[in-house]
């Protein structure tokens, strides 16, 4: 747990620059910044330890957020805290026990903390060499979703990103031009309700032309 008193948060690190906007940080954490926007934010984070700490802390909070099933088991509301909450105008905000089981399922919560679902990748299979027979990437679809295909090289650098609403992408010439070698591919699916799931990573090989 983060302890502000120990100076481990941004409360203890004073940035001399204007703070980043909440929208920028959230978009970065969700991987939704692209191009110049992404480069600008990465540059700022590289140069600004306080901004970096804020991003790290927020990321850790998101990563440790309770799963929905665990949320339902939250029973503790101490007397002192309850008194503070009761002092508010919106005293009825906390669900009663009999309401907990009928809580509406939050698609947004799924988006943040229930990303353990996976997309089934079809081809290329792990370690497959892309050539005349297989010249495309294919995966199982999710209704209404859009997809992002990521391809990275052996150093981990993302060499190709492709957004599509299809579940098949032809082997891009740009990848062939990068030369023979081992590459890795994965797919993120963005569902219409804002949630996302990701595939595992698969290896494939591009042979010499």
């Amino acid at each position, binding site marked *: *747990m983060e302890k*502000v*008193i120990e*100076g481990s*948060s941004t409360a*203890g*690190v004073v940035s001399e620059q204007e703070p980043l906007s*909440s*929208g920028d940080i*959230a*978009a970065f*954490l*969700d*991987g*939704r910044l692209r191009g110049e926007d*992404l*480069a*600008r934010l*990465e*540059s700022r*984070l*590289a140069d600004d*330890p306080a901004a*970096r700490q*804020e991003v*790290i*802390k927020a990321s*850790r*909070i998101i*990563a440790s*957020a309770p799963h929905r099933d665990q*949320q339902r088991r*939250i029973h503790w509301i*101490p007397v*002192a*805290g*309850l008194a*503070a*909450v009761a002092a*508010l105008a*919106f005293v*009825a*905000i*906390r*669900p009663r026990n009999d309401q907990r089981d009928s*809580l509406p399922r*939050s698609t*947004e919560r799924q*988006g*943040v903390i229930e990303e353990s679902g996976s997309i089934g990748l079809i081809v290329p299979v792990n370690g497959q060499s892309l050539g005349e027979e297989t010249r495309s990437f294919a995966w199982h679809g999710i209704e209404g979703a859009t997809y992002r295909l*990521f391809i*990275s090289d*052996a*150093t*981990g*650098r*993302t060499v190709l990103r492709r957004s599509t609403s299809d579940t098949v992408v032809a082997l891009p010439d740009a990848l062939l031009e990068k030369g023979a070698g081992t590459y890795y591919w*994965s797919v993120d699916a963005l569902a219409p309700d804002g*949630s996302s799931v990701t595939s595992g*990573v698969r290896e494939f090989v591009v042979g010499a032309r």
Partner: protein
Amino acid sequence: MAELPRTLENLLRGEPPSDEAWAAFAREYTALLLHVARSVARGTDEAMDAYAYLLEHLSADGCRRLRAYSSDPRSKFTTWLVVVARRICIDHHRAKYGRLRNQESSTERDRLVLRRRLENLDDAPAFADSIPDDSATSPVTAVENAELTNELKALRASLAPADRLLLNLRFDDGLSAAEIAVLLRYSSQFHVYRRINSLLAEMKARLNARGFESAVS
């Protein structure tokens, strides 16, 4: 652009928002807001205090703070809410307890006191100064180290922003490769290691080319 969650859409539809819509919103996100409050606060009472402040702040001025998301919904709402809620909790903590700098923490204060005592130690054995210090650096070595440090700084500064950020997260902030992989959208932690190794090898080669062979061997 992300779509607004239904409860948020309902909430922001009203001017001012209705109590029912607010109650539905709070019910939906109570667990997340509590989690943020608990992650920032010390102890249960302080967490509940921060949580109450959060609700008060989010509902103030016709939910003005929440309306900011609807004008710029680039991320998932819950991600944005975590960032905003954490900032509100930090502001609350500062308003209540004052800004805390590293030097003000008890741990840091104790460390500085101990350090001052060691530095001012005047009852050390007189022969202490005569003991050769193997770790002491010669003036030549000190200059070489300074040159190497400056060269490394320049090399890091010349890297692409994404690579600079990667090295900062790993070596300045001490994040694990797995954590970095999530933050920077690498496919896996192994990709993080590979990229770091590749960068270090590249930097080493550039240092070697500039005559720092022995220093980086």
